[in-house]
């Protein structure tokens, strides 16, 4: 973030400026350094976001099994990445 020309932030939650100003010592990246903000809850799925949600153990197991073969990986990608309309379909299934 400190060295890059552009910084894109993917966030779980949008909060009010009042919330930010209340705890300035918790701000890691001040707004003037950010070029884009993407509001996308559960964007880390099937991994975790500290303090918000845990790993999706079942899903990671499924991925680990599927990725043992090239064909399995292709099927996994078709099912969860290329074959879905958006981020949310994956999350709900």
């Amino acid at each position, binding site marked *: 973030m400190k060295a890059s020309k552009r910084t894109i932030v993917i966030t779980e939650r949008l909060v009010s400026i009042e919330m*930010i*100003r209340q705890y*300035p010592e918790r*701000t890691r*990246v*001040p*707004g*003037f350094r950010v070029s884009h903000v993407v509001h996308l809850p559960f964007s880390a799925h099937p991994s975790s976001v500290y303090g918000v949600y845990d790993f999706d153990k079942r899903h990671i197991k499924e991925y680990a099994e599927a990725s043992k073969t090239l064909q399995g990986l292709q099927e996994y990608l078709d099912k969860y990445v290329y074959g879905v309309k958006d981020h949310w379909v994956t999350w709900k299934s």
Partner: protein
Amino acid sequence: MVEVAEYTPFELMAVAGARELKDGEIVCVGLGLPIVASFLAKRTHAPNLTILLELGVVDPEPIEIGVDGLSDPRIWYRAKSHTSFADMLGSVLHKGLVDVGFLGALEVDAYGNLNTTLLGDPKGKYRRFTGSGGGNDIASCARRTIITIRHEARKLNEAVAFITSPGYLGGGGEREAAGLIGGQPGDYGQSGLWLRSAP
């Protein structure tokens, strides 16, 4: 009858300084009058100004100006981020993210070099002052620098006793040759230095 508001020279300087700032700019502010001028700008014509304090405070909204210079939490009130001195100088200023440096000084010379370190006399006696905190980094790295200083003969000299923070050094491209970023003359004429004094 037109009523003329009463004001002090310092208030006039703060207003003049505030008018130099444009909305949406990122300004790194030094101790003293520049703080007053920047917050005045933010509360009037430049609400989207991002005010940075060299010690690592981002965009505070103080309700009073404090008693102890920059190291007073009154000035940090409602900041968006508290980072550090090293972060502000190292990864914000030296990265060239700051549009405007806004500084006061003891003494300034014809090339905009600032002295906030010491004043001496020909006998070799000298007196030390408190500068610079982040003043050198601000003057070295901001795209343009505004200096606010009282218009007195002893403060505006041909040469300064000590160059704390660089302006155009000896002139004639010396600033560029020294590898300093910023210092864009902009609309301030070819000399790069532009003096505006009170009427």
